[in-house]
């Protein structure tokens, strides 16, 4: 961080339409959004308002129907499938509501997976994984399978996996949705700490308690941003 704030994500007039049985549904309409480096943005809104779709598009898991998306100054519209995969691997970290750890891999191997796709050497991978697990307090469970962990622990591992590759953007989709309040708080504290260390975070949540963790909150309704304001730093 050099004090100069560059936009990590820039969305302009972003629209996403789904067509099912000749019925057109507008998941997102004319969304304009800028996420600066070091931002901590929460996206809130009722169920079906397009929060997850927006996050998927930002995370390059989906493509918009119209509008432009620039990630770290680079338009992503014309990227090939392989280039999108490469950017996902290097620039973006995901945290899902249902953790999405791979059940057949150990905690260590789960965290190691994105680094493997990056072609990193085993020794470097080992270092990074150890550090990431240490950061989330899960080093002692490195050899366990996800099924042997509690929900909160699984989400911590998921956070470690997302952070191990040191992405420029961390996307979290309802990260506390499957957790009890204590575990949820603990994960949010962890996110807060990660942000304090300089990470750019975009989190989808409809829980106002967790939305307050963010610097900026965006409300979506029927696919449109209806309110955007600066939130107080917690």
């Amino acid at each position, binding site marked *: 961080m050099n004090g100069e704030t560059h936009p990590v994500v820039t969305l302009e007039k972003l629209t996403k339409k789904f067509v099912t049985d000749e019925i057109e549904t507008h998941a997102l309409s004319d969304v304009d959004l800028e996420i600066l480096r070091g931002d901590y943005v929460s996206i809130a809104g009722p169920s079906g308002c397009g929060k997850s*779709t927006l996050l998927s598009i930002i995370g390059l898991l989906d493509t918009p129907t119209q509008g432009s998306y620039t990630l770290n100054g680079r338009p992503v519209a014309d990227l090939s499938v392989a280039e999108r995969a490469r950017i996902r*691997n290097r620039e973006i970290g995901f945290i*899902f509501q*249902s953790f999405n750890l791979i059940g057949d*891999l150990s905690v260590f191997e789960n965290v190691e997976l994105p680094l493997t*796709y*990056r072609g990193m050497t085993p020794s470097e991978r080992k270092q990074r994984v150890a550090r990431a697990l240490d950061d989330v307090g899960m080093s002692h469970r490195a050899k366990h399978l996800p099924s042997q962990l509690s929900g909160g622990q699984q989400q911590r591992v998921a956070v470690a996996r997302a952070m191990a590759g040191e992405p420029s953007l961390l996307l979290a989709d309802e990260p506390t949705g499957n957790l009890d309040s204590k575990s949820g708080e603990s994960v949010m504290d962890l996110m807060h700490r990660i942000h304090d260390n300089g990470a750019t975070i975009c989190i989808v949540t409809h829980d106002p308690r967790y939305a307050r963790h963010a610097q900026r909150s965006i409300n979506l309704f029927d696919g449109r941003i209806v309110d955007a304001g600066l939130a107080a730093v917690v």
Partner: protein
Amino acid sequence: MRDIWQDVRFAARVLVKRRWYTLAAVTALALGIGANTAVFTLVNVVLLQGLPFEGADRIVALGMQDLRPRNFGVSSQDFDDWRRATRTIPTLSAAFGANLSFSGDDRAPEQYTGVYMSATGFPIIGSKPVIGRLYTADDDRAGAPAVVVISNDIWKNRYGSDPSVLGRKVRVQALDVTIIGVMPPNMKFPFNSEAWMPLAQLPPAVVNLGRGNRQLFVFGRLADSVTLEQARSEFTTLSRELARQYPTTNKDLTATVQLFLDRILGGPIKLLFWSLMGAVAFVLLIACSNVANLLLAQAADRAREIGVRVSLGATRWRIVRQLLVESVMLSLVSGLVGLALAQLGIKWFDAQTQGVGKPYWMVFQMDPRAFSFFVGVSLLSGILFGLMPALHISKTNLNEVLKEGGRSGGGSARTRRWAGALVVTQVTLTLVLLAGAGFMMRSFMVLYRMDFGVPDTSRLLTMQLLMPARKYVTSADRVAFLKRVDERMSSISAIESATTASNAPVGGGAPRLLGVEGRTLPGERAPSVTLISAGPHYFDTLGVHLIRGRLLTDADGVSQHSVIVNRRLADMYFPGENPVGRRIKLTEEFPTGPQTDWLTVVGVAPNIRQGDVTKVDPEPIAYVPHAESPGMGRGAILLVRTRSDPAKATAALREEIRAIDADMPLFNIRTLDEFLAQVRWVYRVFGVMFTAFALIALVLSAVGLYAVTAYSVTQRTQEIGVRMALGAEPGSIQWLILRRALTQLAIGLTLGVAGAFGVGRLLRSMLVQIPTADPPTLTAIVAVLLVVAIAACLWPSRRATRLDPVTALRYE
């Protein structure tokens, strides 16, 4: 490479974790890979390996063919003319297969398969002896001292591998012969031969039968840079010239030149083996379809995992690679199990083909080529069944699978379409396989139940003897010997009845041209009938009663010229008449002896099969006393109905024959039932194999159909719950599930029936008295497949009706 190792480790973990899926997949694939490896090994040995000589693809076999077209050997006169004239095949050799009896060396007389072969035969195949020498052109001339080269087996078994066997005198076919060499192990060219004698030693009584006597097997090596076509062209010209010079014996005869192996593999052998290869390829395709379906069903479980991997930056290729590593590992494990199954299959086939006269170089075992095929098939199967599901899963909709409660990627319409297509493929291939197996087994059953014309085959022994040409020079010598054998056999108490004959039932016969006194028979050529010469007790021994007339007696062939015809001959040439008392003439196509006499028909016998059993109608046959068969060969058959223990009768019989001629061994002793079993072996062995493969396919298809239907129930559980909540009856729920399965089944059956017609046409030459689209067979197999398939679908569809609506509604 490190990444691959990671993929391998993960794949191993997945396969162990999903052990039931792994077990099902390994079983299906092992059967498919094992069957393919086993059958390819057989195909490789029979059709691909070729002769075990250098430049074997230049070795050709020659013969003669008439316009019908029937194939013949070559006369020694034609052979000599060819040898002098040919430019395209500078080294020609002639061989005459013979059973050679070894005696006079202080050991029991023994009969061996041998050959009289020109000295040029050895250079053609490039063979060398392990000890001693081979005979040369100098040994292979009239008047040269008789020599013999023996096989390694004779050297080992008869002479205890004694090197001093060289120079030893032995009586072979009543001729004093010196052993000059021993062949290497497993060298038995050209007729599984155990002993080789110069062609010049062939008794004059055989050689001098004239240009019309075509008994030599001729082979040679094409000259360098000469093509098969060029050789054919030259020999066509040569045979035309000989036909012009010798029209009596050579008219309308053309020389044939073909690769040696093509001559050996004549008839339906190639078709059978390639059909079998096709059958097992189908089995493998069915197995792969099955496993692909299992993988598709697993797509539901794997979709979220794949989604996570993609979200973490895995490329599509990386995902496909990961899944392919899993499938290839699965196929390799299956391959190892399949390899063990293949070895069992090869051993079984080898045991089944012992004693059926397969060429000596065909040893059924895996060689590097077969092993490469095995490895290739294992790897390819993994890619074949793994690629489609891998590509499918890698296209998973990430938004759907990654969000909480999102639908898994496995239940899409795309998955259902793929699964449906795979089921249709399985049903189609299975029906085609069942049709092939059905046709083969029905042919076997026709043969098994076929009335060969011998009402009681129990306690009926057949055995062969061979009258050496030097000792039994004239036809009269042979007739006299057989008469004495007939007389001596009657005196053995252990024997109920016995006879000599030129051929046993189903053992062929000599072709003769038929003439009927006072009648011109229709057609351009005289019709051909089968001639059997027999002793007076022939029909008694077989337990056959004549339809009309009388049996042959000792007086027949002596004071009167008599013949018994079978019913088929009577029906064909004396329709609506009583042939008894009419006269017929039976002449050789290319006469080698004096003109034959008119024979009076003295009886009509029921039809006894002699030749091609695949034909619906039996052939016309004439039975004559030995004396009325001037061209009678040196071989004869003894047919013996024993009173009780066949072994006791055989021992007594040997004694009696030895009493007539001490050098005359009996060989190929077996019951008529065993003899008939040998006739049927091709149908039995190949029928069993086709059936086994078809049953495997049936089971795999049933399992596949079951799995897809069961999976469909799982996928539609929530929908079923909704329907039930809305008041759907169990019947309509069941129909909901069954409808899709039955549609797939109907499409598969339609395509399969079309394929079955094709299989019938393909196997046409192998079918015994059944049409190519045999309605009973097709109806039966369609019914079997239908019943099995419906049963496979019914089970999961019934399960659907028993679902608890509340649970089903909560199901995700």
